[in-house]
């Protein structure tokens, strides 16, 4: 015969499993930093919040039309890279802690060598759509990335590159991004 205590124990296991599954599903939109001090919250905007749920930085104010999002924190929790993929374009954003405050940046379009990649792949025309993915951090200041560009006419060109935190001077854009803080380098066909 089951005692009340045993009954509770059995059901608590089921409930705990349910809660873990539910929280795991929700965690896709909330990515904690490795040290647990911050959480990247992805909803109608993308924000970094601290342990008291205070927003310390809005990385992307509006994600209307977003199809996919991926993000990875650096091991030291000082940097986070995120990719926002839309139907035909992508944005590679990053946030980084500098001088005690969080700053945001975005990879510049000019880093993307669309003509070089087209030449290497033997295709022509302009890029009609592009998708990016994060492979992973390979050093404290660099992340391996991949992408797939689709050129006018429908030719798909997969490629890889490295995203580097430059540590160099930056320029604050009108939109509030520190241009030049990250740079895409070593683009090559995959």
């Amino acid at each position, binding site marked *: 015969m089951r005692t*009340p205590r045993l*009954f*509770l124990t059995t*059901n*608590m296991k089921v*409930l705990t499993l*349910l*809660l873990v599954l*539910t929280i795991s*599903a*929700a965690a896709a*939109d909330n990515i904690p930093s490795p040290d647990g001090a911050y959480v990247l919250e992805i*909803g*109608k905007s993308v924000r970094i919040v601290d342990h008291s749920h205070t927003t310390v930085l809005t990385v*992307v*104010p*509006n*994600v*209307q*039309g*977003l199809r996919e999002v991926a993000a990875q924190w650096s091991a030291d929790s000082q940097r986070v890279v995120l990719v*926002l993929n*839309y*139907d*035909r*374009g*992508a*944005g590679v*954003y990053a946030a980084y802690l500098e001088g005690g405050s969080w700053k945001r940046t*975005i*990879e*510049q*379009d*000019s*880093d*993307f060598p*669309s003509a070089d990649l087209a030449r290497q792949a033997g295709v022509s025309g*302009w*890029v*009609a*759509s*592009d998708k990016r993915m994060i492979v992973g951090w390979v050093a404290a200041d660099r992340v391996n990335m991949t992408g797939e*560009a*689709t050129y*006018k*006419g*429908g030719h798909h060109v997969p490629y890889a590159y490295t995203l580097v935190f430059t540590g160099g001077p930056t320029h604050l*854009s*009108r*939109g*509030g*991004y520190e*241009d030049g803080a990250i740079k895409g380098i070593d683009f090559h066909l995959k």
Partner: protein
Amino acid sequence: MTNGRTWRKLIWCGVLVICSAIISGCDDQSSGYPTGGGPGGSSPGSSPGDGGPGQAINQNAGGAGYGTPQDSSQFGDPAFSSGVTVAKIDTDGDPNESTSLDPNYNPETTGTVNGAPVNSAQYAYVVMSQQQMADSGVSIGDWALVTNTSNGQQVWARVEDTGPAGGTGEISEAAASAVGIQFQTNSNTIGNPTVTVQAYAHTASIPHN
């Protein structure tokens, strides 16, 4: 046993509350800017051009669109200027298009009108990359001015689609028709027309005439 049932009720209530809170926090990605209206397109240029083998010139664009902003004097300087660039036609959102006609066609657009994709043939819109929007402060729904540099014709449009890195001069079928640019059903332009696109940040809420 009574205690067991009470605990069970309490625990299930807690689970329901947590699940409800998580579900209510989900993002539906809906658009909030006002829908457009009024004439956005005009007749395409009169030159028939060379349609190319198997490709008809698209004569269907230029329907009712966003019209003109009620008060563009509030706009100030453009936050983004493309410079003179080759015009490219974005057929996205046009229900009469397909990937068999235009391999790069996508039925969806980043912006929406009344919850539906923005019809390229009906609405004058422009395409910007994520970086162009982020760095300029321009958002989906903001107003933009498209100018055909060869004939000076202009049309007001809205930013309604997200394009790839570095893309400039990408405009909807309605916008192209409005400034006299002809194109085929595969979205290739007739010749190499050039345009400038100027976008104005924080203007999405300004209604049309």
